[in-house]
């Protein structure tokens, strides 16, 4: 038994490092003010984790901690995604001047904590583990959302907490039902149990699966479980909104992929529902985004729309779909975080979050406007940017799997989404600014936006490397 533990810990060094670093940052942040030491600790943690991840054994699968956790190539991708998200968000945290400076140590520590939770979510191989991971992300997120400590932030945090607690409860209830029905918590055991079910499983099974899905759906803002998204995004500090719009979405999708594989026998009954919700999610998100006037709310709905595209990769149930999903997730990470870095920059300069804060940005700070325009065009799927390649793969996967209506829905939605992305570009370049503002972009924000821009253009024009590597990720069995 001790050998299992020590072997497991060997594979799990990046996570251990991240956990220790997060706790230390929190601790240092609580003690020392200003928070320089805690921030330094956080950066050290990020680099150490990256180093350990890079040194981790290559593509192989290993079940750790008595099958609670699985490390496979699929999980590795999400480890990197989680770390990349965390570090870019950390840059934004350090770069923003929004009055959270004194508590920055705790801020950074919590961000790392979310990062750890995200990694766990993608590795969970057991319902209980999945629940713990989701809760780790959720609890840290509640705190982060209320971090700005103003009325709006507190309202958002409370709202997020209530919605989150409710959905966690529902999910837990579903899990307990499923456990009662099968006596299994591990995904592998569930698959074996589920294989014995008749073609049309009893409705109690479906109910329990649906309840579990509700919990995940809440995390990825699947319509109709998206209600909290705009309010929370609006109230949270910009870096936190950025984190929420990428990290939990990616990790929850990974979890969803594993659960769908585990519950494969239920898929015929479940599939049509998920496909319907996919189309509903993208259409609803994009349509409502059209009429937003607050830029964070706009991005909240845009995120909902983007999640819709991502889900295409899941619901088509093919390796190509999964590859498309991962590819688009990577693209989405860079372009969305990049856009948020630019938003943080603008909000900092103007002190406003309404869309007219962007008026005349093209004249005021051409570099910033160019970067933001780049990210928006990539989100809209204009070639030769990274977002286009991702969409190309996703829609292609849908067509390949004979889900042509899904591809058509995605294409129509891309056209709708273009409207509001370009509306923002229009304001930056074609509208005249209302009042002069002093440029106040900080170096970390510039670095964050710069990294994202390089990835967005670089992988867009030369995607060969990343495309060649994709099949490795999905070749293996996910359980």
């Amino acid at each position, binding site marked *: 038994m001790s050998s299992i533990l020590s072997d497991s810990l060997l594979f799990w060094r990046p996570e251990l490092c991240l956990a220790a670093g997060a706790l230390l940052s929190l601790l240092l942040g609580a003690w020392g003010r200003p928070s320089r030491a805690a921030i330094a600790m956080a950066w050290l943690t990020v680099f150490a984790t990256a180093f350990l991840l890079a040194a981790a054994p290559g593509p192989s699968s290993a079940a750790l901690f008595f099958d609670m956790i699985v490390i496979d190539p699929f999980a590795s991708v999400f480890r990197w995604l989680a770390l990349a998200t965390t570090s870019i968000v950390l840059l934004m945290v350090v770069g923003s001047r929004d009055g959270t400076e004194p508590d920055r140590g705790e801020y950074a520590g919590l961000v790392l904590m979310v990062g750890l939770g995200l990694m766990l979510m993608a590795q969970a191989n057991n319902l209980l583990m999945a629940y713990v991971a989701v809760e780790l992300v959720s609890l840290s997120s509640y705190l982060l959302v209320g971090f700005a400590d103003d009325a709006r932030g507190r309202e958002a945090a409370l709202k997020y907490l209530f919605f989150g607690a409710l959905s966690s409860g529902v999910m837990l209830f579903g899990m307990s039902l499923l456990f009662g029905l099968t006596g299994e918590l591990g995904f592998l055991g569930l698959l074996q149990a589920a294989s014995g079910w008749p073609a049309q499983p009893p409705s109690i099974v479906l109910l329990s699966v649906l309840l579990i899905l509700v919990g995940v759906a809440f995390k990825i803002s699947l319509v109709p479980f998206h209600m909290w998204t705009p309010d929370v995004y609006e109230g949270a500090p910009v870096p936190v909104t950025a984190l929420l719009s990428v990290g939990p979405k990616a990790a929850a999708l990974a979890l969803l992929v594993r659960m769908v594989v585990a519950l494969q026998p239920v898929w015929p009954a479940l599939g049509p529902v998920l496909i319907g919700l996919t189309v509903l999610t993208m259409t609803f998100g994009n349509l409502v985004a059209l009429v937003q006037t607050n830029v964070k709310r706009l991005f909240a709905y845009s995120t909902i729309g983007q999640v819709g595209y991502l889900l295409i990769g899941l619901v088509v149930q093919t390796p190509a779909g999964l590859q498309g999903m991962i590819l688009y997730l990577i693209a989405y990470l860079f372009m969305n975080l990049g856009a948020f870095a630019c938003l943080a920059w603008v909000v900092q300069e103007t002190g406003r979050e309404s869309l007219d804060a962007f008026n005349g940005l093209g004249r005021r700070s051409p570099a910033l406007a160019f970067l933001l325009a780049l990210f928006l*065009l990539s989100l*809209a799927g*204009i*070639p*030769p940017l990274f977002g*286009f390649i991702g969409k*190309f793969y996703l*829609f*292609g996967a849908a*067509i*390949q799997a004979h889900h*042509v209506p899904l*591809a*058509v829905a995605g*294409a*129509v939605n*891309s*056209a709708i989404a*273009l*409207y509001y992305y*370009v*509306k923002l*570009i*229009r304001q930056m*370049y*074609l509208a005249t600014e209302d009042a002069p503002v002093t440029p106040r972009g900080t170096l970390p924000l510039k670095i964050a936006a710069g990294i994202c821009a390089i990835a967005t253009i670089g992988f867009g024009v*030369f*995607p*060969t490397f990343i*495309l*060649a590597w*994709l099949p490795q990720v999905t070749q293996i069995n996910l359980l």
Partner: protein
Amino acid sequence: MILTQMLLCPVIGLLVALALPKNRPGWIRAVAITATGAALLLGVKLLLAFDPNAPGIQFQQRVSWIAPLNVYYNVGIDGLSLPMVLLTVLLGFIACLASNSIKTRHKEYYVLYLLLVAGMLGTFIALDLFLFYVFWEMVLVPMYFLIGIWGGGRREYSAFKFFVYTLAGSMGILLSILTLYFRTQTFDILTLTATGHSLELGLQKLLFIGFFVGFAVKVPLFPFHTWLPDAHVDAPTPISVILAGVLLKMGGYAFLRIGYPILPDGARSFGWLMAGLGAIGVVYGAFVALAQTDLKKLVAYSSVSHMGFVAIGLASLTPEGVHGAIFQMFSHGIVTGGMFLLVGVLYERTHTRSLDAFGGLGVRVPKFSALFIFFSMASLGLPGLSGFVGEFLSLLGAYESLQKAVIFATIGIVMTAAYTLTATQKVLLGPLNEKWKALPDVDGLEMLTLVPLLVLTLVIGVYPLFLIGLQDASVQRFLTQVLGA
């Protein structure tokens, strides 16, 4: 290699212009003119090196780009694309010369302009569907800004409408490209041309509809044309020239290069639709043009009318019709380009485009009047000038198989004469409006932009074989591909 060099001209120019300081508009303009001029010179070299007797692709270059997807940087031209490439480099240079009317934000303007030229050139030389799509979309972004920032009137609305319309259409193209790829595992247009006919008819029809939506918006075919009057009118003069002269041809060319050869049976089953919409466009555009009081809008609607002939000629699938379609595209490019330049000349001086505001200019500005009459006549389809050849061949080719469309379209020809003559009369004839007593005539630079177009209109009008000879082998090959051996 020469095609890549040509494509690199605007790209290098763009990078140099980016590196230059903002407060040196003269330098930036010089760079842009050099870049487009170099592309034009390469165009002439290309024309001389082109072998008109070879039906296949020439000057091909193929380099792997995205290996996992089988995407190649694959460029080449034949007789179908050569006229379009020449048109692009010629108008690209001329519109760049005419860009001295741009007075603000020079650096951004020329950078975007060069990007636009690169995108258009790329569209006409791409032989890989993926590459084609990238170039096709690449044109949108600079065009949006060029209309939106430097335009007039409701420029924001027009730029926006242009962008959203075209991108919505592009989604159809994207879906069709994807479907083709998953059926055939290739984006190579030449391979697809050779194998496309073996796809089942139902699928071909579906794919053609996808392509059709995207291409028809660009041509533009009635009823997908509504972005055109807005965009053309509100764009600054040089951009109107590019829009009407080159951008619209992307649609027609795409039908020739992709729609018809890859999906011959699908395309043939929609021949009636192409011809019908083309004929409606001819007549509708002409009638609406007749009702305009804004000179630029009149020219814009005349484009809708003239591009209708392209659709009719294409749909006929006869040698005459296809020759006519390409000829009409080329001719419309230079003639309407000239018309927009003239409207720009007038607007520069008077700051109005209202037909009623002019009158009697013929006395005051003889050079302008001569040019205006010349291009109007070419646009009207006067025999001896290029417009006549294109329209005549299109209708001739279509007469047997699409008689109704041809007969209907002739109404449009009559109306074209009506609105062109009305415009000429209102601007040039009658008593001189006292306001324009001191109107200066066309200056040297403006002459420089207009005379090449004039000469070309005359040359290919009198000796159409000059252009048709270049196309002929490729047109024959195109028809064999579409109609089967």
